[in-house]
């Protein structure tokens, strides 16, 4: 294969496609190359020098001399260069040799680290990045252990308000320029730059401008040190105390892959998780910061509620709540009952809803559509995370189209009982007090206090997206896993449990004990899922349905890969 070239890395021969960056080749075979400025999704200016490695090529014969003879494997002895080269911006070549270990690389890494630390404030004890800082990690692994710099450190701006969500400490900055390149190349809002280049090089926004893009927090993720930090997360929690859970964002149909950082039932931050088929390495700030309500003990529903004879809500046990709900529902015939579920529910939950509807012979099952403007990057027009799941599992062609007829049916006394699952009908579905007044029974389940719950006869506590597991289908038709970050507060149950328990109280249904069991049934009964095993979905999801939908940011990234600008 002429597209592959033979490269020797630390003494072993490997094959790589032509054009592979040296750093990627090394990574592929497990030879670590420390780096700061290199990022596969951004162009490589090669300015941090941390990825210096020793390189060798076949020797060039002197004029008239015989060229070196290849050995039995076809490899020519490598002539090593006395000076190191950067691995991030150079590509592999036939018969190239790379050494990521040895005296030369050790010496240059020590040198680069010493220079980077010369002006670094070494304020790790008060720095948010401590624990996930490349400067810390590399100085342990590749540093000298002590500095020889005795002079005055350069003073630079500190605690700079560069934007509404980002704070900058210029003394910590190692001038890798990842943030500048991200804003130039990905976010298309090139407000960052280096001023006073030289010994005073300063990362800055233009006076009067702000780093206020809805993707600005990605620069804090990209920052290998503690120069750019998130105002929201700053000083909140040491990174090593938090538990990381891989799950997906539920703010829109994109379903960006995320990692949630939580400790003791509290979420502290959310970061995008790399998935090159969905969100690349990025996510919008608006989605990232929309978790605070989950931690709000004041507004969360933490127990089941039922109205007493005076119409006041009283706390009841979950068991009683299901029993009360069931006895109220059992007074009505199926055609007098409607269910409004949510496109924020997982496929498993929707499957349970379908099962409940079948048991009740409910007249209508509907969900609430939620739309907004697509931003041309990662935010999709569909602000529900699982509309495709609704279409596929519940079989609704046009989710939301029956909401008006539910209202009419209530008014005309045809529907007497309504079950609202994971939706606040008044705030999100355009229901009014008048619309709900005609009901005899309203049962609702929602993570936090809301006007629909206030009017409900029985309120069942259902966990939010961070408190449940399951699967969702994003707009591209990709099946992705939602993983439980933590238990819900109080007696909150996962929404699929709420539906199961309600159905059990109604005398139907039997032991389903996990969301994985539901998925198994889903795979048996819903054709689109047939043959899929839960454990096959993995952390990155699998394409399930062909929708033809694309994500603009991803398409542009693919273009840059094709142009050879980035590795991808």
């Amino acid at each position, binding site marked *: 294969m002429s597209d592959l070239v033979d490269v020797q890395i630390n003494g072993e021969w490997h094959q790589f496609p032509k054009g592979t960056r040296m750093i990627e080749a090394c990574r592929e075979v497990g030879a670590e190359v420390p780096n700061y400025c290199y990022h596969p999704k951004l162009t490589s200016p090669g300015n941090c020098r941390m990825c210096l490695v020793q390189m060798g090529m076949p020797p060039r014969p002197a004029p008239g001399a015989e060229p070196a003879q290849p050995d039995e494997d076809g490899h020519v002895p490598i002539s090593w260069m006395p000076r190191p080269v950067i691995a991030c911006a150079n590509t592999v070549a036939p018969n190239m040799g790379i050494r990521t270990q040895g005296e030369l690389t050790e010496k240059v890494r020590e040198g680069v680290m010493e220079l980077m630390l010369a002006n670094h404030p070494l304020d790790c004890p008060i720095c948010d990045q401590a624990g996930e800082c490349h400067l810390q990690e590399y100085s342990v692994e590749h540093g000298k252990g002590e500095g020889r710099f005795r002079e005055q450190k350069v003073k630079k701006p500190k605690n700079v308000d560069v934007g509404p969500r980002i704070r900058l400490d210029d003394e910590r900055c190692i001038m890798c320029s990842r943030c500048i390149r991200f804003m130039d190349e990905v976010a298309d809002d*090139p*407000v*960052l*730059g*280096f*001023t*006073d*280049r*030289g010994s*005073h090089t300063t990362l*800055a*926004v*233009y*006076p009067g*401008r702000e780093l206020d893009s809805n993707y600005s927090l990605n620069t804090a993720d990209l920052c290998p040190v503690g120069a750019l930090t998130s105002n929201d997360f700053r000083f909140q929690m040491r990174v090593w105390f938090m538990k990381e859970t891989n799950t997906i964002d539920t703010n829109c149909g994109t379903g960006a892959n995320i990692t949630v950082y939580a400790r003791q039932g509290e979420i502290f931050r959310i970061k995008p998780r790399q998935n090159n088929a969905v969100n690349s390495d990025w996510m919008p700030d608006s989605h990232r910061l929309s978790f605070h309500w989950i931690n709000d003990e004041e507004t969360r529903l933490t127990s089941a509620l039922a109205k007493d004879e005076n119409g006041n809500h009283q706390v009841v046990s979950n068991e009683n709540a299901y029993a009360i709900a069931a006895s109220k529902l059992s007074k009505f015939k199926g055609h007098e009952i409607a269910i409004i579920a949510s496109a924020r529910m997982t496929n498993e939950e929707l499957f349970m809803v379908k099962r409940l509807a079948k048991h009740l012979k409910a007249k209508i099952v509907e969900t609430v559509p939620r739309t907004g403007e697509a931003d041309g990057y990662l935010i999709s027009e569909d602000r529900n995370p699982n509309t495709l799941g609704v279409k596929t599992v519940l079989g609704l062609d046009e989710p939301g189209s029956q909401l008006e007829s539910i209202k009419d049916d209530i008014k005309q006394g045809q529907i007497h009982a309504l079950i609202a699952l994971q939706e606040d009908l008044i705030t999100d579905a355009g229901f009014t007090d008048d619309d709900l007044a005609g009901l005899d029974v309203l049962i609702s389940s929602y993570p936090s206090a809301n006007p629909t719950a206030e009017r409900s006869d029985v309120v069942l506590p259902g966990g939010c997206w961070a408190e449940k597991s399951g699967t969702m289908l994003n707009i591209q038709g990709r099946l992705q896993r939602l993983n439980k970050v933590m238990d819900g507060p109080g007696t909150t149950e996962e929404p699929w449990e709420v539906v199961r328990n309600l159905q059990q109280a109604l005398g139907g249904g039997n032991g389903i004990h996990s969301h994985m069991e539901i998925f198994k049934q889903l795979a048996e009964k819903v054709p689109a899922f047939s043959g899929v095993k839960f454990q096959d979905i993995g952390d990155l999801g699998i394409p399930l349905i062909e929708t033809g939908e694309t994500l603009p940011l991803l398409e542009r990234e693919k273009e840059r890969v094709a142009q050879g600008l980035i590795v991808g």
Partner: protein
Amino acid sequence: MSLEVPADLEKEIDERITHYPVSKRSAVLPVLHLLQHHFRYVNEEVIEWAAAKLELEPIKVLEVVSFYPGFRQEAPGKYHIRVCRTLSCAMAGSYELMESLCEKAGIDRSGVDHHNPIAVSADGTYSIEFAECLASCGTGPVCMVEDDFYESVDDVDALLAKYA
């Protein structure tokens, strides 16, 4: 934007940009030189005008302006003096030259630092700053007043008298 760029200057700038057909960004240095020559210094208004002209974000122009000491971000006096302080001139007495120039011209350099290199006399006639090598190392100390070059400067009074 309130900056008024004369039509003939703008015409010259437009012409200069055509020398860089691949990327307008490459014209940033010559454009800034022309603007500084006319306005005496490159302030925010000038930076923003140049950025708009070259279809760049202002920060990308500020990066260039703040890198080159040759671009002044603060207003100079009527006559701007640059005294070389690189090795040969320093040894030949450029610091002494700076001191006596300041004394005679009535300039207080106590507010000068890395970010504010220029000091202006109280009456606004003279301004002064240190410059790096002015390329006449055998005849130090050397200085420039506006675009005029002076070697082996010893008579400060006579020098200043030419610019009064």
